[in-house]
């Protein structure tokens, strides 16, 4: 059984086919890297898997369960978490509160209108542990608005990991980071346990290649090649797509 199985997935915006008959199988525990030039349809593919977009055709299975018609909000409850290419966090809240919101999303507590949130010790302990994992527990109480871009990237990852997903979608986790910050994030991603299957979109091959078991190359909404690291890097089509030869 695959962790993620896409069959003949199709999505068009008007006349533009952004996802064209995509078939993809990701094994449990695998690290899959999706690469491709700008406009190849990588983020659209993520939005389809996460349920933010409805596919025009085809099916999506998560650990054998058909989730094609499942609303976006139900998918985290099935073990799917994602990060965004453009950071979408809660700027008025502290780092701790951001992670709390992530934890609360999967807890029935989120409907409770009479308890005091700050008294929920277990929730706060869990959130602190999640921040510790990405090395931000020192500044847990700092408002998000006063943190750096690199720190926010790590908050994104902490929030996704806090939900203890089975499948984690990372959309360009290295975008906009300095060399040092990239190393930090890379270390962080390498530390993710193998119970979590990771699918990652990334342009920076230097840091991303080390993380990937298999690589999928997309171009104009289609999957061009798929294979191990060495196979894809050596493939003539890779050069063609990236260098426009």
């Amino acid at each position: 059984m695959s962790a993620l199985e896409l069959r003949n997935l199709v999505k068009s915006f008007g006349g533009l086919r952004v996802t064209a008959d995509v078939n993809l199988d990701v094994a449990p525990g695998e690290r899959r890297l999706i690469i491709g030039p700008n406009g190849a349809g990588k983020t659209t593919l993520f939005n389809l898997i996460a349920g933010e977009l409805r596919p025009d055709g085809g099916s999506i299975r998560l650990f054998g369960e058909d989730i094609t018609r499942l609303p976006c909000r139900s998918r985290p409850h099935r073990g799917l978490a994602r990060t965004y290419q453009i950071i979408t966090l809660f700027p008025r809240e502290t780092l701790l509160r951001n992670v709390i919101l992530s934890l609360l999303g999967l807890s029935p507590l989120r409907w409770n209108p009479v308890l005091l949130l700050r008294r929920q010790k277990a929730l706060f302990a869990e959130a602190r542990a999640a921040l510790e994992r990405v090395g931000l527990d020192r500044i847990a109480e700092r408002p998000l608005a006063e943190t750096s871009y690199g720190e926010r990237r790590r908050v994104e990852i902490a929030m996704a990991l806090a939900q203890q997903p089975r499948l984690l979608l990372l959309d360009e986790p290295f975008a906009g980071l300095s060399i040092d910050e990239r190393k930090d994030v890379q270390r962080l991603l390498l530390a993710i346990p193998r119970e979590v299957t990771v699918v990652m979109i990334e342009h920076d091959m230097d840091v991303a290649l080390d993380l990937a078991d298999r690589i999928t190359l997309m171009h104009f909404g289609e999957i061009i090649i798929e294979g191990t690291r060495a196979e894809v890097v050596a493939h003539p089509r890779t050069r063609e797509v990236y260098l426009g030869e």
Partner: protein
Amino acid sequence: MSRWIALALALVALATVPWWVVNGYYVNIVSQILIYAILALGLNVLVGYAGLVSLGHAGLFGVACYTVAWFVAAGWGQLAAALFALAMIIATSAVFAVLSLRATGIGFLMITLAIGQILWGLAYRWIGVTGGDNGINVPSRPAPFGLSLTFSRPFYFFVLVVFLVAVAAMAVLIRSPFGASLKGTRDQPRRMTALGYNVWLIRFVAFLFSGFWSGVAGVLFCYYNQFVSPNVLALSSSAEALLMVISGGTGTLLGPIAGAALVVVMKNVASAYIERWNLVLGAIFVAIVIFMPEGLVPGSVRLWRWAWSLRRGPRAAAALRTGGGSAG
């Protein structure tokens, strides 16, 4: 600590109003402030915490008002009338919410405005039920536990109790996990969906809560005036409620209360001295927008801190400007 002292002082001040405001007319004005404060607090749940600006809340206020008036005038018991009104307000809020939550932002505002106007039209034209322009007279105020509310003092205490319950409910809600969920849907609805929240349902529940308190205010207003007419749910009433929330400070607990006090005082007290009191009220709103765009309460807090820091010297003022020095 100082927070609790301030709270205790405020409670004492509110509880002793009939003694330091001896004149019954002014006691009634304070009752009116509290009634409008409940409406503004209810509206603030949507405007301040859900990020949904409604221009139709006078409609909900009015529906509750009319329901009580109709049942009491028809000879039903006071308790039954009040319960019918609350059931009615929840049902109306639910319909209101289902229709208006199809949109957010300006779309939401326009739908609430339209429904509010429909309700106003019903009150004005459905003469068989509402009495049209003549309105409905309410023969008597209720007498809970045998205590007559006919006079201004006991009525004030009745309103005060309901007001305190409303404030407490609001304070608990915004500090609860649900309150955090609600604020999340205001700031990042898309992210909230991706985190597993049902954004629509959260907004729907918030709308019911907001509508419920607006309705409670409507019931009290009906007892206060012992009369209801279509003016109660006119667009200008909705706009007034929204102005209370915005001028006082959206997304704060005290803001809507301060805003309600400002509007009611201007309407009732200043209008006795200045014929064009609307002009004065307008000028005050303009001043608030220019000098305290965040609203009276958060704006005053900011100015107060700034004034204090000036007294403590330029270094403290500089620290305040940069956000309180080192936080890590």
